[in-house]
């Protein structure tokens, strides 16, 4: 029962924060909405008893992505000029397309329910660590290389050419 109340509260919070992120005029508010949405999704992961993933999500999204977003908003400036339109001319078309996408996805999810396993699975941190270094070791190493390349690339791109 408590899980259900938590699920619905967190879902509403995530959707409202998502809408705010997409529609808000002030970009700084949009970044903060991303932080709220990440918190809500981390809470939803807690209701799925995926504690490790929830805390990783908070660490990475609120600790890194939101902070980078705030810096980008600050560095690029002019983010809440009242005369400046926030969206382009494709507003109606974008709304229709994303609503169509939503109904398509919901149709797929709702019409053909996926057969569920008898028992719900819970993964401990120990199991996740073991899996990452045994069965999924190749993607794990690849994603580490990707992260390294992305960090070096970000530094090189953002530094400019004053050397």
């Amino acid at each position: 029962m408590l899980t259900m109340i938590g699920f619905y509260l967190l879902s509403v919070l995530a959707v409202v924060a998502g809408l705010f992120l997409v529609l808000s005029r002030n970009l700084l508010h949009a970044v903060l909405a991303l932080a709220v949405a990440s918190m809500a999704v981390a809470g939803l992961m807690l209701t799925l008893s995926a504690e490790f993933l929830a805390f990783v999500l908070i660490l990475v999204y609120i600790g890194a992505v939101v902070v980078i977003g705030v810096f980008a908003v600050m560095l690029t400036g002019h983010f809440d000029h009242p005369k400046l339109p926030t969206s382009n001319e494709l507003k109606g078309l974008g709304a229709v397309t994303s609503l169509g996408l939503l109904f398509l996805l919901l149709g797929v999810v709702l019409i053909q329910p996926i057969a569920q396993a008898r028992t719900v699975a819970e993964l401990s941190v120990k199991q996740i660590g073991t899996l990452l270094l045994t069965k999924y070791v190749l993607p794990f190493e690849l994603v580490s290389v990707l992260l390294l390349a992305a960090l070096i690339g970000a530094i090189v791109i953002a530094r400019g050419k004053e050397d």
Partner: protein
Amino acid sequence: MMITLTHYLVIGCILFAISMYGVFTRRNAVALLLAIELIMLAVALNFTAGTRFLGDAGGQIFAIFVITVAAAEAAVGLALVIAIYRNQKDVDLDRLTILKG
């Protein structure tokens, strides 16, 4: 009534559609990148729900990979935005047409 996999998939779909609207309509490059981050969030939630209800550990592992890729994408994307702003003094996507042939 129990909370099932379908509940989580529906929330994931709604978040995905909202962020697609942001990707379609935002004019500011930073706002567009934030919407893409929201897409990754929805995908990670769906993967996690898959592990819980389908009993396959791969879901959570790949959710970790999705979060990693989201972090890498945020770093590179925002570095690009800053580089573009330094050159063009503008991050409005409708006015960034210098690559147009």
